[in-house]
């Protein structure tokens, strides 16, 4: 153990602990900006500097290791002066428009300024870091004037996701993080996962807002505004509205959405179950008939673009199933419109997602028919939370409302789509029973649960030893894909989710740190456990839909509505 003194207080920490960690142990708060608990240490913002006795230079507490006998001062006059001067330099480069910033209230720069009580006008003239305002991406908006060049976006994009869409350009005063090859983000290799938004301390990277079209359509009496809500949303919405991570709010969420103005609120769990039947049938077919294996899941649009860009030769491995969002959209604009006797263009099909890549997915030209989009707007959890707040709804005391029929019934299997391993577990629950004809005795398949980056499991199904793998985070996907590409795996089925932790870690959720993920994950499986039906193929509403409309899984109509094709995007790398 290392013994040192901070602000006169003795403290003991493990060897290798930083001064910041030691101070935290004493409940001494040191402001930080480039520091992120889930990232490498950068030590570039210099806000967390502290004074070390006997040292002329101030040292960054985020990187400096605690050593025996050190005497540290975290808020000495020398430290305060330097810290305020540094903050002043940052503020003189940062857009002065907090009042209409997306991150006002959750901005780390704002909170550092507030806690340091920096209430003066900087002594330097304001010079924007860049006038560049990049709204080319359907998912992520970039406002370089708010960038403080901490590098957290680049780290998550390059080191965790291995996409390398953002890169440091220029030097000195001109240094910036920009999309590679000087392209607008929307024309770049960005896969729209939105993890950079989660990492950004300020409003420099935000989720592209689509609430306006929804608000406008509420006012149009000729339109039916229909929402589908993804499984993860009920886990993270309450958190976005100030409740602790893992607060489940399904019933309140539906009530709030009805009060906001949605005419119908459906459950994407329904098409998650449908996905399992389609994808499970496809898997069985591939295994039995010598199809291309391993089959790769296709629910995650960031993963799909990643595969299309970096592994186009593996596209035949992707399941042809549309994502649950797009299956839902297709059903809304065909079956549901017919059922209601209205024109598909009179439905505003809105999906509420924990995801930013879904905003990209809705724009894919191959999804839709006759020029009519299946999804008209995708709202992130952050956007829905904002709509609820701005409608004057107090969320915590709302009563519960159930989802609307006919797409209101989902199973536990659909529910767990929200976390890494969920699609796989749901698929195994169904595929096992379809293949063996036997009831699965223990349906909690723990081997595929948890936040670990790469998980494996296997199951014996009528003599076939089915091997599966589950990954989350694109860096892990890359590891597995390299093995698949080299022919070095014997998996039959691989679930891939782009975001660390799966959809509950998605870019459209409230800003997270990994420490919150366990609570979100627990909530997912809590929901699954509570539901009376936990296997997709037992969903009576899904069965009814097949009987009434679709025919059979992978049948003619299913194929037309629920399956899709992919595009080789490797040209983006040139």
């Amino acid at each position, binding site marked *: 153990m290392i013994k040192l003194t901070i602000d006169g207080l003795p403290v003991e920490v493990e060897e290798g602990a930083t001064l910041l960690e030691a101070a935290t142990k004493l409940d001494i708060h040191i402001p930080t900006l480039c520091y992120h608990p889930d990232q490498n240490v950068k030590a570039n913002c210099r806000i967390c500097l502290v004074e070390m006795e006997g040292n002329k230079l101030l040292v960054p507490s985020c990187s400096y290791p605690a050593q025996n006998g050190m005497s540290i001062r975290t808020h000495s006059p020398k430290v305060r002066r330097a810290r305020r001067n540094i903050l002043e330099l940052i503020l003189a480069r940062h857009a002065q428009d907090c009042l209409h910033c997306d991150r006002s209230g959750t901005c780390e720069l704002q909170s550092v300024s507030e806690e340091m009580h920096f209430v003066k006008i900087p002594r330097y003239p304001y010079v924007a870091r860049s006038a560049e305002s990049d709204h080319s991406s359907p998912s992520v908006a970039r406002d370089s004037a708010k960038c403080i060049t901490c590098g957290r976006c680049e780290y998550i994009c390059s080191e965790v996701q291995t996409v390398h869409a953002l890169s440091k350009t220029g*030097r000195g005063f001109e240094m910036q993080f920009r999309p590679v090859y000087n392209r607008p983000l929307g024309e770049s290799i960005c896969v729209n996962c939105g993890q950079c938004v989660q990492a950004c301390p300020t409003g420099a990277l935000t989720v592209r807002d689509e609430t306006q079209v929804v608000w406008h359509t509420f006012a149009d009496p000729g339109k039916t505004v229909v929402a589908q809500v993804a499984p993860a949303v009920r886990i993270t919405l309450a958190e976005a509205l100030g409740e602790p991570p893992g607060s489940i709010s399904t019933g309140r969420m539906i009530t709030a959405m009805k009060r906001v103005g949605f005419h119908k609120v459906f459950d994407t769990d329904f098409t998650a179950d449908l996905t399992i039947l389609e994808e499970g049938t496809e898997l069985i077919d591939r295994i039995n008939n010598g199809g291309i294996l391993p089959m790769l899941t296709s629910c995650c649009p960031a993963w799909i673009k990643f595969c299309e860009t970096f592994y186009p030769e593996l596209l035949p491995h992707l399941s042809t199933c549309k994502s649950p969002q797009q299956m839902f959209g297709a059903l809304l604009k065909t079956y549901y419109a017919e059922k209601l006797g209205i024109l598909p263009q009179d439905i505003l099909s809105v999906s509420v997602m924990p995801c930013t890549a879904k905003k990209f997915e809705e724009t894919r030209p191959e999804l839709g028919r006759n020029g009519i989009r299946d999804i008209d707007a995708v709202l992130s959890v952050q956007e829905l939370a904002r709509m609820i707040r701005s409608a004057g709804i107090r969320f915590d005391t709302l009563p519960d409302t159930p989802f609307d029929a006919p797409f209101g019934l989902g199973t536990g299997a659909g529910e767990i789509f929200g976390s890494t391993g969920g699609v796989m577990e749901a698929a195994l629950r169904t595929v096992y029973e379809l293949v063996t004809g036997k009831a699965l005795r223990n349906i909690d398949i723990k081997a595929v649960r948890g936040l670990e980056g790469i998980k494996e499991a296997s199951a014996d199904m009528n003599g076939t030893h089915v091997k599966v793998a589950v990954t989350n985070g694109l860096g892990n996907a890359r590891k597995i894909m390299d093995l698949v590409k080299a022919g070095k795996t014997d998996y039959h089925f691989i679930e891939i989710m782009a975001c660390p932790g799966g959809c509950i870690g998605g870019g459209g959720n409230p800003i997270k740190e990994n420490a919150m993920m366990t609570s979100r994950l627990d909530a997912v499986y809590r929901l699954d456990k509570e539901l009376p039906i936990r296997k997709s193929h037992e969903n009576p509403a899904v069965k009814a839909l097949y009987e009434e409309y679709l025919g059979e899984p992978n049948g003619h109509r299913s194929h037309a509505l629920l399956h899709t094709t992919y595009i080789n995007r490797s040209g983006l790398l040139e």
Partner: protein
Amino acid sequence: MLTETRIVLRNMDKIDPVSIMDYKKRGGYQPLRKALAMKPQDVIDQMKLSGLRGRGGAGFPVWKKWSITSAAPGDKKYVICNADEGEPGTNKDRVILSGDPNSVFEGMAIAAYAVGAEKGYLYLRREYPYITPILEKTLENARGEGCLGSNIMGSQFSFEIEVVSGGGAYVCGEETALIESIEGRRGEPRFKPPYPGVQGLYGKPTVVNNVETLANIPVIIERGGKWFSEIGVPNCTGTKVFTLCGNITQKGVFEYPMGTNLKDIYETHGGVKDNFDLRGFMLGGQSGNLINAGQIDLPMDIDSCQQAESVLGTGTIMVIDDRHDILDIVENIMTFFIEESCGKCTPCREGNIRIYEILRRISSGQGRMEDLTLLEDLASTMNVACLCGLGQNSSVAVITSLHNFPDVYLKAIERGQRA
């Protein structure tokens, strides 16, 4: 009048730089042979006895650096010669490398033997391309004679040296930025600790020594640490290779014992030209100090300079006569650092240009008295808060000129207020 004490420059103009035979005739590679017969620890002990401190500017004791790397665990270790001599006005490393490259390579080999490295890199300033063929030819000749390469002089010790061209950035003279550059990334400094001695090139323990430092090593081994320690002043032993530039009559690279008085050096080399008066000195390069003519009585060694709130740095002495305006010089220095800041840390990225803005305001007659406070406030923050030596020292010229030439600023502000 001073006479030079040539240790580092011992072979200057006496040999064909690339010739291994010429170098050997002057005793070259005997020190390496001698070192190879010693225990590595004994080599380090000789460095300790010599008191040699790094000549790149920071003055860290060589034996300490080597001991750290020697003791650090690692399956591979590296020795890097920092030849990224980017400090404007400094030419000593260029002269050493082009005049006697073997002395540096031999120093690297001894260092490698002492710390247990088998691979070395010489990181050469981009703007010295004409030196590359000299270095390559010298390496080839030395390898041919078995002085470098595999099983040097029949021993178990092998050491390969590779010359790497810099990327043209001043900041790569900072050892961790240099390492990043060799690894193929943007030349940006890393935070320290961990220091390169423990975690350097490719994460391995790495000794980074300056050209001049390394050129001293063979002589220390040959003649003993004790002999070396008697040259110069206590705690700052040996000689220093100075670069004289600016308005001095005799410009060039000269070697004097540590502690030699600035006044003597100045006078020996003819002072400023007739009809002009001495205004001051810029010591240690652009990142160094501006002192006035009255501060000329200054022993030029690391500690004395520090005590006088000055800096020895790279040993560059830029003489300024009364034709030059100090504000103009400081402004010019700041444009250099605006250009050379890598942009990684906040105070350097944002600060240099802000200092320049304030200086321009003052020199153009728009200055206010508060600007002096702001200058001091910002410059002193950069001094203690920046991530690397570049940012920590880019504003030293401003701070020292405020202290040593206060009238320059006051007059400019008053002139503006009158107008």
